């Protein structure tokens, strides 16, 4: 796999798309021909969820109640993209809260079907496979869903480009996405930064047609990847918030020590590593 011109394939039932990772070439592409809404979402997902071959980060989640009460989750998260089909493997190791230390999650993500999930419960020394089709359910009790963490199947929604908008000196695509199948939201509006293609804001409307969740990307850092000629920069959202307007609950997430292209192996995402993760993974 070549790093500068990186190939990633978003397997979305019939879609296999080649994406050019360089900002420069994207801009020229857009100047030539306006992008369709689906393409924008695909590229945005690529930039947001599929950057690099793999990735490792420490994640701090603050779950903040309306009353101000706060819960903290600290975890190490690793992700590896499969070579095709948009499949990914995730590994999550919990550091905090204290009584769940050493618990691990493993997710093998398939955009078009039910994910494979495992959980390791150290107190009873058991690894259990989980069968759950609800990707919209909460991720570890936060306001983020599993899909918000790992991305939603592009083909699950019908996308349309509403307009272009300039906000705070940046240019945005405003895309409306309507789920094909009944979902917990009926409409999503995304503000996608034309330059980085990252979604900087998302609004979710519920079945009562009321705005109930708002996502914001609060901080973007350019993470350096590779050396010399291979050097590249991945704009990465390192601070994000999901707010539930109906409950007043919100979750703030900070990514720290983000690194890409560590050379993770597919077989590393195994039950063995769930019990005993390599020290370098959980540092």
């Amino acid at each position, binding site marked *: 796999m070549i790093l500068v011109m990186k190939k990633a394939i978003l397997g979305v039932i019939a879609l296999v798309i080649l994406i050019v990772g360089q900002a420069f070439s994207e801009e020229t592409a857009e100047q030539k021909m306006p992008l369709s809404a689906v393409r924008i979402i695909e590229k945005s997902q690529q930039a947001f969820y599929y950057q690099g071959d793999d990735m490792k980060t420490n994640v701090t989640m603050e779950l903040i109640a309306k009353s101000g009460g706060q819960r903290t989750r600290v975890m190490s998260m690793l992700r590896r993209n499969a070579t095709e089909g948009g499949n990914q493997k995730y590994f999550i190791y919990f550091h905090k809260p204290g009584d769940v230390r050493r618990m691990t999650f493993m997710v093998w993500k398939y955009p078009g079907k039910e994910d494979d999930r495992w959980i390791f419960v150290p107190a009873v020394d058991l690894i*259990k*496979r989980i069968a*759950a089709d609800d990707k919209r359910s*909460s991720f570890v009790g936060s306001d983020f869903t599993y899909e918000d963490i790992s991305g939603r199947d592009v083909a699950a929604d019908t996308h349309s480009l509403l307009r272009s908008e300039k906000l705070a000196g940046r240019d945005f695509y405003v895309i409306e996405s309507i789920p094909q199948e009944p979902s*917990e939201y009926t409409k999503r509006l995304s503000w996608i930064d034309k330059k980085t293609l990252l979604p900087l804001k998302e609004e979710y409307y519920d079945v*009562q047609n009321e705005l109930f969740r708002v996502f914001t990307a609060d901080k973007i850092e350019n993470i350096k990847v590779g050396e010399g000629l291979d050097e590249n920069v991945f704009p990465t959202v390192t601070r994000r918030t999901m707010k539930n307007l109906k409950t007043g609950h919100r979750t703030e997430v900070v990514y720290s020590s983000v690194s890409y292209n560590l050379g993770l192996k597919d077989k590393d995402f195994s039950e063995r590593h769930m019990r005993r993760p390599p020290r370098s993974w959980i540092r």
Partner: protein
Amino acid sequence: MLERMTKFSLDRPKTVIGIVLIVTVLFGLQFPRISIDTDPENMLKPDQPDRVFYNRVKKDFGIHDLIVVGIVDKEGIFRPESLERVARVTSQILKIKGVIIEDVVSLTTTDNIKSSGGFLDIHPVMREISLSSKAVDQIRVDIAENPFLHEKIASVDGTAVALYIPIQKKDMSYRIAKLIRAILQRELLPEQTYHLAGLPVAEDTFGHEMFIQMAVVAPLAFMVILILVFLLFRKLAFLLPVGMDAMFAVIWAMGLLIGTGNTVHIMSSMIPVFLMPIAVMDDVHVLSEFFDRYRVLGDKRRALLEGMQPLYRPMLFTSLTSAAGFASLALADIPPVRVFGLFVAFGIMAAWLFSMTMVPAIISLMSEEKLKKILSEEEGRSSILDRVLKPIGRFAFSRARTVLIFALVLVAVGITGVMQIRINDNPVKWFQKGHPIRVADSVMNRLFGGTYMAYLVAEGKEPGSIKRPEVVDYIGRIQTSLEKSQLVGKTSSVADIVKRINLVLHDNDKAFDKVPDSSEAVGQFLFLFQSSGDPNDLDNFVDREARRANIWIQMKGGDNRQMSAVESDLENFIKTNPLPDGITLHWSGPTYINKVWQDLMVFGMLKAILGSFLVVFFLMMIGFRSLTLGLLSMVPLSVSILLSYGLIGWVGKDYDMPIAVCSSLSLGLGIDFAIHFIQRFQVHYAKSGNIDETNRYMFGEPGRAIARNAIVISLGFLPLVASSLTPYVTVGLFFALLMAFSTISTLFILPAALRIVGPRILNGGKS
């Protein structure tokens, strides 16, 4: 002073009527600002400890008020076509604004965690809308096997499912319930029926029916009063002043109540109906006297001034005592009761003012010919009242001792009855039997785990206390113990979650259907639970720091006595099973809160009734300038109160909110007859000096006036019986009874007593 007021009204009748009208319009203008309040929680002051605690529980555990929908299918709910309808209904209900989507508990929205084929299987109980009959059987098995769902989302007998629909605010429940009904009517199969239960529905429906009651029952009472006045006096001319007085008193009282920013609660909605019969009492006296004099004098002004002369004092005192009786409700610690008492008191004094001013002014404007005509029509009619009253007077007087001994016996009977009084209430029972809400209540509580919620909160000293295995286990044992009672349908807690996760993690090995023995395991199980479904599910049972846990107790009945019984079950359990270190338990929840305010109400009312007894007694002593007469005037009313409440005890009717309220009213009103009787007796005896002759006089015109007033006031409350809300019915019946007792005891006991003590305490023949 009072006479000068009346004189002024006669000199400037139009000015007086004009002023009254303007003020009335001003009060009337407040009406559009009306706001209705049906929340029983408001029976407690905002800073009442149980209420404060309940609010914290609601906030910390993310608890909302629930509408419970039951769908019953007589051919069995576990059929593909039947469940399909349920699923369709559920998805439409989610679209109603105000429904808290993520917290709805139902077949399609609630996850079941089970172990299947080595997997930890987390899916909604019902995943697809169209199902095979095999899938339907699986759903039935899944529900039966999960203690969290069993008896909660489906009935044990397989005929019904329930949807639990949390709503953002209680006052939305009427609107939401209406929309839910429309969906159900549209979507359900012919063999499917539905029921709506839950306290918010009961409360909000009550509020709406209250409006209707006010619009129907109050005017009905008004009509009845006017008809009664007409039947008793046969004078159409009476109706105008009497009607205006009653109506204006209501407008003044309600206008002030609304204008001062008070909400109209169940109590204050009864103000019009209470006020109208009381308001007309003075007018009845004024008009009786006026016509008596007018017949002789033929001069309106003189007839009014002379007729009112002997009435100023008794009218002032009867109004003051009635007002004091109601105002004494301000001693109760229950805000809506205070508001009710104070504003009825205000209305009574307003009505008294009208009787002094507006009523004479109206009469003075009537044409002489009309009045003369009324007089001529009246000639020659003998009164039925006379035929009843005269023998009573003779009997009570000649058999004074027998009457008094009989009264003593009745008092004893009354006291024994009072001792048997059972204090109990339940807001659902505020609806008549057969009301959809009552039906839903009984059906739902028969089929499911119970719709009356109480919460038992376990609290530890430091964060994480709840995760201690012995604490979780103790919570589980509390549940087992409480569930032994017939009153408790179902309980749920963190212990159920922990046990469930332990079981399914170990592939349904029954040996693991228990609390694990380390707090790490408890913590990790809870984390797993939280990570696998809706995080709010856990929040309902454990607070963020795991310092407190909430045990949900679904009761089959919401009576206060039932709540108390469950509380004492818990006390017994604690006696034999000491609490884990540092853990305390507190009750909360709507069913418990209702019990709290009703306890407060009983003692508040007791305080109020004692207070008003003293106030009225004090007023009587001043009024009659005699301790003995003061005491004597209290006798008939004490007897009638004891008798009425004794009857409640004997009959076994629950002493509930409306009955409690009646007690203090009865004091203020029951005394009226005694005041008039003793005052008239005193005055006449002073002139004649002959006790026998005075008694005969008393059972003439004064007796008739008392009896007429008694009829107006007893029957005037009866329209309340037509109400669909039981508190109104209770008040109507009970009050009619109380007034009847009060009249009878006045007419029997006072002559008997005055025959014996009269000559000693009254000055006879001195003027």
